């Protein structure tokens, strides 16, 4: 039961990260490695604000805005200074390591006895007694759903259309008289804002910050995006944003399953990569069909 909750909680937290990765990787076609830095950045900012005594609810918008600023920096390095996409992410990721240490103060910060979005008087009053075990999962579910619907809504606005167009066919964007560089910067800032928000929630769920939590974040994000979009491609009821979040829950589920079954922890990475391969191979088989199906995952 606790493990199942843990999978749901972690899966949905990383689902928000995966939504960010989805914007850069699938929509903008931009392999953004900033993620490994912006995820702990959100966490660092959060523990800093909480230890300063700020009300926990403030950390959510603060982390999003902080992450958005980080995304703008990556965008400016790429678009204005004409550094290649992969490199601009690496530069930001490396620099953020130091920034994160500055922001958090040290490499480890514990916030066990502080109020968090999951543990404060208002929330505790709302979930009395035995329901308390579910409160973290419920709150995360609400936040993740909120983020998903906001993103769905945004994709339908003019700005969202332009974002999708830049990744697909940027000549169209230019012919509309819009600066495609600017659109990319906006996309990167939203993406990293989401990643940072995910780090913010993670730090509060774990009640601690650790400098290395960002290592491999981009891989988890990519795996979730690819698992989600390939497995649920046929399920027309699901929007792609939901598939991405489900992909993330599934990813964490696989790790937990392997662990629960008592498989040597050393082997878990190999098992996940085999599983990953299986899913890719199976979904490729289906894709052979028509071109229209192929396009489905973009729109």
């Amino acid at each position, binding site marked *: *039961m*606790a*493990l*199942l*909750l*843990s*999978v749901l909680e*972690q899966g949905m937290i990383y689902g928000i990260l995966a939504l960010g990765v989805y914007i850069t990787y699938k929509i903008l076609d931009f392999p953004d490695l900033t993620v490994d830095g912006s995820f702990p950045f959100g966490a660092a900012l959060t523990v800093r604000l909480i230890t300063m005594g700020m009300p926990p609810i403030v950390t959510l918008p603060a982390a999003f805005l902080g992450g958005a600023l980080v995304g703008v920096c990556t965008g400016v390095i790429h678009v204005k200074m004409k550094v290649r996409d992969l490199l601009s992410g690496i530069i930001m990721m490396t620099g953020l*390591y*130091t920034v994160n*240490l500055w922001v958090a103060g*040290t*490499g*480890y910060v*514990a*916030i*066990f*006895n502080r109020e968090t979005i999951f543990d404060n008087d208002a929330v505790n009053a709302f979930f009395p007694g035995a329901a*308390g*075990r579910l409160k973290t999962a419920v709150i995360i579910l609400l936040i993740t759903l909120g983020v998903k619907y906001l993103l769905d809504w945004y994709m339908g606005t003019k700005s969202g259309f332009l974002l999708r167009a830049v990744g697909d066919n940027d000549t169209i964007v230019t012919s509309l008289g819009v600066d495609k560089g600017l659109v990319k910067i906006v996309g990167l800032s939203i993406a990293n804002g989401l990643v940072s928000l995910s780090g913010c929630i993670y730090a509060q769920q*774990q*009640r*601690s910050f*650790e*400098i*290395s*939590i960002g*290592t*491999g974040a981009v891989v*988890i994000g990519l795996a979730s995006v690819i698992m989600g979009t390939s497995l649920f491609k046929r399920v027309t009821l699901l929007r792609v944003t939901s598939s991405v979040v489900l992909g993330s829950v599934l990813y*964490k589920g696989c*790790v*937990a*399953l*392997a*662990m*629960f*079954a*008592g*498989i*040597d*922890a*050393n*082997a*878990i*990475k190999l*098992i996940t990569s*085999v*599983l990953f*391969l*299986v899913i890719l*191979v*199976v979904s*490729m*088989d289906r894709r052979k069909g028509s071109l229209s199906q192929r396009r489905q995952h973009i729109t």
Partner: protein
Amino acid sequence: MKKKSLAAIMAMVLCTAILAGCGDGGKDGITVGISQFAVHGSLDNCREGFLAGLAEEGFVEGENLTVEYVNAQADTGTSAMTADNFVSKKVDMICAIATPTAMTAYNSTMNTEIPVIYTAVSDPVEAGLANADGTPVGNITGTSDALAVEAQLQMIREILPDAKKIGIIYTTSEANSISTVASYEEASPKYGFEIVTTGVTAMSEVPLAAADMATKVDCITNLTDNTVVSALQSVLEEANKANIPVFGSEVEQVRAGCVASMGLEYYELGRQTGKMAAMVLRGDAKASEMKFEVISEPSLYVNYAAAEKIGLELPAHYAEDAYQSFDEILVH
């Protein structure tokens, strides 16, 4: 079609692997879940000591004790899930080895009855696991591996009567290291030393930092810094070139070529932890009421081969006083 059958085969292999892992032992007796943060000589010694300590108190693995051991491979996500997994399996106790796993184990067990016993946590107060007076913040207690800074300085003074500067290389992200550097800086004037520090952020920076350090100081002393210890051989190489000694912080480092150390025996630390765990398992004491413990007396370790390599003479009485001495350098 080929691809599909290939995928099917891979899926089957995976399922078999999962099932093969399933058949764990009976449910009677006591189950302890050990969550260790990384594969690391000292931490492994700690775990062995812990099991030995439990065995001495009558909890023998395989007889009346089932042990589930998970190593998080230095991944905090995995360590969080390990702790949740132990909670859902309703183990009788979680033993957390190293600070990050202790923190995640405490987080996961907060609303349960499962006690957590930690070990190899340098600063339980800083990590939020204990109050300033050593009492636990929850149903969690254990042992700390804080370094015996004063004893180490005293030993260095005895070996090198004319030395002035001690170099320390540490990782800026490791909280343990930062607090130990601070205690070195505080204690050093008493012994007439000046501490020179260099911070690094990754293993790849250690050789450069060591080369630079070796030209500036009279000797180098190590912390239990995970990154620097992993790159110990490059530190030793640079120090040997400059003909200055390197002092270790625990036995494994002395075995691998440090001259001497007033350090912790992690096996002993683990044993002490195992005895604490036994008290909790028997119901003699509650984890929530026990203060965390430290090893009171550090032990002296010397490596004569390492001293000879740089032409250093160790005090004669070390032959008797050393808890353990080595005549060769063992690099593994």
